[in-house]
């Protein structure tokens, strides 16, 4: 496989995953804002910007922190490289560059997702926004399904590797921001607001039902953290992403003979993860833990690029 192809496949995986995550984040924030016992307002939208690394850039646009403005910025804004439309655009450019490595179905799926957003400028009211993010989720699911039906070879694994690295980053970021920034002063831990926010987090990673299955004692922040950090059976947990990265790298190693720094880093991370208890993390500082995780994830990303000679 060409080095350029490998890089494009990996980034294709990352961008599709990012678009999907943004859609979920917006959906959850709209719900938090609209459905919770009292409107969550500015704080909710500020945290959505923060989770997606776009808080400063949004501020520079000089727009008010309203739902309409933030939603437009995160979905359709051409001047925001982190918007859904720009993620899909980047995904499609990568897919186009490696069309020969994709099946017709995979390519069509990403092209369809892109066509859906092209030439749209107004996301509309909350109902229209929910419809729109729903269709983003449907399209990215369609892409994921198509990728799963590709031959089990380097191309598929590189896309999935990109997605897994991105997903790990997203979940860590989501937890970090929501846990530390969201709850305004004066609100009680365990109060209505607090509950709403934890529910939002679960919704963002589609884990509301999973939570109910696993924890009988009702909603608690410790349990949500446990679920999202160390439960291997939840696909969006850090543990599951870490595990998936190790597996994908070893598939790639068997097939291409390429293994090295990236494999070692990923395996060491997995071993640490298997021994980690979420209570200990909370005790010693969740924020520090997540910050370190995000940093390590970025280092791993760099190691992958070197190992597969990305150009």
């Amino acid at each position: 496989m060409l080095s350029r192809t490998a890089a494009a496949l990996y980034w294709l995986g990352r961008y599709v995953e990012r678009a999907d995550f943004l859609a979920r984040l917006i959906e959850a924030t709209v719900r938090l804002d609209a459905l919770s016992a009292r409107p969550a307002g500015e704080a909710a939208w500020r945290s959505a910007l923060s989770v997606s690394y776009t808080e400063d850039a949004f501020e520079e646009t000089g727009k008010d922190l309203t739902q309409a403005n933030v939603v437009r910025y995160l979905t359709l804004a051409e001047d925001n490289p982190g918007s859904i439309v720009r993620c899909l655009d980047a995904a499609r450019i990568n897919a186009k560059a490696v069309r020969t490595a994709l099946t017709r179905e995979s390519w069509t799926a990403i092209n369809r997702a892109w066509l859906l957003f092209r030439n749209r400028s107004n996301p509309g009211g909350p109902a229209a926004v929910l419809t729109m993010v729903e269709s983003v989720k449907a399209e990215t699911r369609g892409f994921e399904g198509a990728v799963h039906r590709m031959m089990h070879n380097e191309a598929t694994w590189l896309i999935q590797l990109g997605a897994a690295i991105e997903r790990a980053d997203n979940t860590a970021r989501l937890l970090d921001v929501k846990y530390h920034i969201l709850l305004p002063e004066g609100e009680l831990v365990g109060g209505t607001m607090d509950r709403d926010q934890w529910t939002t987090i679960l919704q963002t990673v589609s884990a509301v039902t999973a939570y109910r299955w696993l924890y009988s004692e009702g909603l608690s922040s410790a349990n949500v953290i446990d679920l999202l950090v160390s439960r291997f059976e939840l696909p969006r947990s850090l543990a599951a992403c870490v595990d998936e990265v190790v597996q994908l790298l070893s598939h790639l190693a068997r097939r291409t003979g390429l293994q090295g720094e990236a494999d070692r880093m990923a395996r060491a991370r997995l071993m640490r993860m298997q021994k980690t208890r979420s209570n200990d993390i909370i005790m010693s500082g969740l924020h520090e833990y997540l910050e370190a995780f995000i940093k390590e994830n970025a280092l791993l990303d760099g190691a992958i690029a070197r190992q597969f000679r990305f150009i």
Partner: protein
Amino acid sequence: MAAAKAFDEIWGHGGADAPRAEFAALAEWIASTPPEELTRRQESAEATFRQLGITFAVYGESEAAERIIPFDIVPRVFLPGEWKRLSEGLVQRVEAINAFLEDIYYGNQRIVKEGVIPPELIYQNEQFRPEVNGIRPPHGIWAHICGIDLVRTGPDDFFVLEDNARTPSGVSYMLENREAMIRLCPELFKEFRVAAVDSYSDLLLETMRSVTPGPGKSRPVCVVLTPGHFNSAYYEHSFLADSMGIELVEAADLVVDDDIVWMQTIAGRVQVDVIYRRIDDDFLDPLTFRPDSLLGVPGLVAAYRAGNVAIINAPGNGIADDKAIYSYMPEIVHFYSGGEAKLPNVETYRCREPDALKYTLENLDKLVVKLVDGSGGYGMLVGPTASKDMIEKFRAALKAEPHRYIAQPTLALSTVPTMSEKGVAPRHVDFRPFVLTGSNGVQVVPGGLTRVALREGSLVVNSSQGGGTKDSFVLMEDVPAQSQSQNGGAMQQTQTAAGS
């Protein structure tokens, strides 16, 4: 007006009373399928093309940076006898093109020495590449893939309009149009025994492998070289690489070391044997051609000169499909084959010759005048429909630089029934079949790209000028009843299976 007396491929010259005998069934299909139904199917095909991203980019248009070429659902049909004559003519012409290139770049320039072609027409031609002079490509094949543009004016009157021996495009449309037709109009394939086109990719790969340099490798590495995804024909490049199962590379993926071409893969370097390049000569190798090109591979021509890589089509081929040389093609075919050209040219006035220039200047309102190095419908005067100003502009240009122009009569191009806003109506067409040449011989794929001028009366079929495409059916000869079950697959030699 030309349209009024044009030959219609279904209805003949006879007007609307009765179709040509062989096309009664097709005429019946058109008449009996409601126009809305045809429109629905056509829109469905175009929606699929859009979804698959079967697009081309129009340079200088940022709004609709990617467009689909309009697709017309009424096919154009060739009878077995028509196709046989056409193929023979195409093989003869492409063999002559290859012989000509060999003679000019590697042989003794016999054709010049014997006075058939004036030397300045070759050596002063911008398309002549001294950089590749004296190089003989692997197996002596120069024009591996030719697209020969044809027009038709009557039942047996086919004329070559243009030879494309550099990087002819359009083959992906030939294949995708067929896919769409099989899906949307399966009943037509019951009615007609249409030769399959989808073996094109296999034949192309065979052709590529057949010109691997040096002693036979069991698995030569073949690649398609594209300028990148912003190129107007990128879809076609990826389509071809995909259907052959080979890598689609960009210049950045290749590196030349010690006159060997390598591609950079995740597992390190892999030697490349055969390159189907979709980059023009000018941009192929900055060390040899344009030094400012970022699309090319430095050192590629040196590797080619050293005989370590085959380049498809060979650099320098432009001299064979140049419009000035075109007018000599009947002589070229005669010179190398010893026989008369089976496919005639459109009558052509070389404005560099005083008599021809005089005639052209006197008849500008009746002629089509073209720049010898123009393409895509640009730099062209269509006399009968041009304004007075335009004609005078060309008159001045012709007088100033006559050698840059040729002129041809406006032909009554054949028409084929085509969907229009007012239902099915005749529209002018041309045709580009594809001819493959390897060390394994010359092959014509039974089909090609029919381009259609969608505007009433228009003769301009270029996609950049609003033309569309149609599927082109080549009908198979009737065969004995027992092998008819091999419906549609008869292009390959499947007869060996008949005994089992």
